[in-house]
């Protein structure tokens, strides 16, 4: 098991380096713009551009640049600097991470609690009105683009431009430490919008898994033992969750993708928005940092899911 974890982590790091190299290549070979030219002003003489390139390290060969970058990241934990604010990428990200984490973790809670419980109830009340209604709603939510749901939510419920003034609207995010209550209220809509799709997906998954599980032989055994139905269901839930766990990791990627859109729509100053802006501005090292961070999240989620799966399933654990 430890060997397995180590192997997974090693491959995870290798993956990060590969992703890093790919992003690196992508944004340098086909850049949206040369930051040196962008910096060079109105009369960008080649010599000045060259100098700026030297300052920014853009004159070196790509492998050298990449090597320098990787060295910085892995040996010195230095992710470079923004070409614009001269702020270290790490501190930029660190500053914006709380917003993104608030958004995604909160959404994950909403998504899991809502998704799984709706799924379980639907499976147990199969073919009832509740089941049909919740699965129908789920499908609608899955089918709706989340950025549009976000805009719609703002149009309907935000307290500035909404039809019903219920929740704080776009750009109202404040840090948790600054004002917990405002933090919470400002995130209600983003959480729900971001979680909607995933919750719906997982409600459906959980329902399917649960229905399948409840037909298993061991559930029959549990009934044959005379266990109260509540305990039988618990056994069912326990094993229905297992196959879902691996999918949780996949969903993290979806959630991160969604976070970019939701941060954009709700104007939450998080890493997603940072990434968006940095790409638009060709701010290489920030792009690199944010992409790396996102990839890291995805990879860690995958590893965690695999380990979690192994933890949850003794059959995997011991093999």
């Amino acid at each position, binding site marked *: 098991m430890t060997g397995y974890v180590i192997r997974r982590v090693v491959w995870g790091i290798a993956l990060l380096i590969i992703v890093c190299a790919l992003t690196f290549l992508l944004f340098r070979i086909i850049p949206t713009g040369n930051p040196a030219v962008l910096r060079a002003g109105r009369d960008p003489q080649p010599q000045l551009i060259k100098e700026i390139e030297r300052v920014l390290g853009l004159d070196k060969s790509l492998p050298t640049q990449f090597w320098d970058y990787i060295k910085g990241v892995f040996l010195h934990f230095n992710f470079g600097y923004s070409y614009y604010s001269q702020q270290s990428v790490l501190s930029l990200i660190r500053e914006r991470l709380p917003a993104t984490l608030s958004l995604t973790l909160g959404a994950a809670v909403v998504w899991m609690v809502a998704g799984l419980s709706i799924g379980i109830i639907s499976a147990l009340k199969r073919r009832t009105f509740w089941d049909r209604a919740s699965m129908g709603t789920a499908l609608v939510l899955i089918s709706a683009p989340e950025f549009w749901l976000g805009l719609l939510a703002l149009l309907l419920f935000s307290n500035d431009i909404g039809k019903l003034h219920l929740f704080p609207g776009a750009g109202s995010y404040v840090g948790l430490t600054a004002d917990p209550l405002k933090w919470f209220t400002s995130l209600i809509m983003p959480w729900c919008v971001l979680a909607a799709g995933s919750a719906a997906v997982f409600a459906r998954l959980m329902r399917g898994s649960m229905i399948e599980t409840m037909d298993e*032989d061991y559930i029959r055994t549990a009934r044959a033992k*005379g266990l109260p139905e509540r305990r039988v269901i618990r056994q069912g839930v326990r094993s229905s969750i297992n196959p879902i766990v691996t999918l949780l990791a996949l969903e993290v990627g979806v959630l991160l993708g969604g976070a970019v859109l939701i941060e954009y729509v709700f104007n939450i100053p998080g890493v997603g928005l940072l990434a968006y802006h940095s790409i638009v501005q060709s701010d290489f090292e920030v792009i690199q940092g944010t992409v790396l961070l996102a990839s890291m999240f995805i990879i860690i989620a995958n590893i965690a899911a695999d380990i979690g799966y192994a933890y949850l399933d003794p059959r995997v654990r011991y093999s």
Partner: protein
Amino acid sequence: MAEALLRVEDLRVEFPSEDGVVHAVDGITYQVQQGKTLGIVGESGSGKTVSSLTTLGLTRRQGARISGRIMFGGRDLVSLPEGELRSIRGNEIAMIFQDPLSSLHPLYKVGRQLIEALQAHKDISRSAARSRAVELLGLVGIPDPQRRVDEYPHEFSGGMRQRAMIAMALANDPKLLIADEPTTALDVTVQAQILALMERLQQELGMAIVIITHDLGVVAEVADDIAVMYAGRIVETASADAVFSSPEHPYTWGLLKSIPRLEASRSEMLVPIPGTPPSLIRPPSGCHFHPRCAYAQPDHARIDPALEPVPDDPSHFVACLLEPEERRRLWAELKAGRIPEQALADVSAEGSS
């Protein structure tokens, strides 16, 4: 004869399905005496599993339409409310299944599953339940039960899993144990171990057993009485000896003559039952077996045979339209290794669906 422990009367179980109503059990009657073993023999789709699941009310959730009576301890299990039925399940009537691996919860330790079974019916502390679990594992012959109690099912071998299932079934000293193909998934050496274990436990604990299997060898080993099922019906029921020495139903003959015997000569021909098992959705008219019966007469397709005692043996019932004398003559021939003319007619012809 003493009052039977379990009496099934005219039990019918039907399932609505996409393709029509499945007549899984089509009016069966049998009884199990205290401390005795009843073997129910039949091929897949004969309704033997459904009938036993229905006994425990486990087909209710599948949308089964159930009629008839299942009398157990003075109560009719067919009409018993779910809550009361639950207190019987695993308590007075226990059940073990064909595939012990899929029948044990893969994510819970064996001990925990045993403890659950105990606590479902007894107000018993966890530690007491645990020591009882260890005891039960020891009883079914699992070595080192102290350690094994904390293992997961996948760490057990096939034989041990079935032992664990048996331990679980025995947790509350049931009066009746229903074993549904308990050895089908096991190798022959392990099967012998499990059968021996069941025999031993029955002697020690005095419970009645219903063993469901397709293997005549298995019932021959353990059963006192045998019921042969075909297409949702019982076609013959008698004591084990009678079924093997003087079977009355052509289907039973078929079963007996279509398996090679270890001790028989290699040159002895097998006499297969032609055709394929019937559809339970549209079962054949008249005697369900008539399309595959080498000895069937034209009017057997119309007349539904009743399960009736055979002459000379009031405990031997058969549902066959052939004359008793004719049956005995045919069996005598078969037993002697000759194949009656009718049976030779189309041994390899395939009545296709």
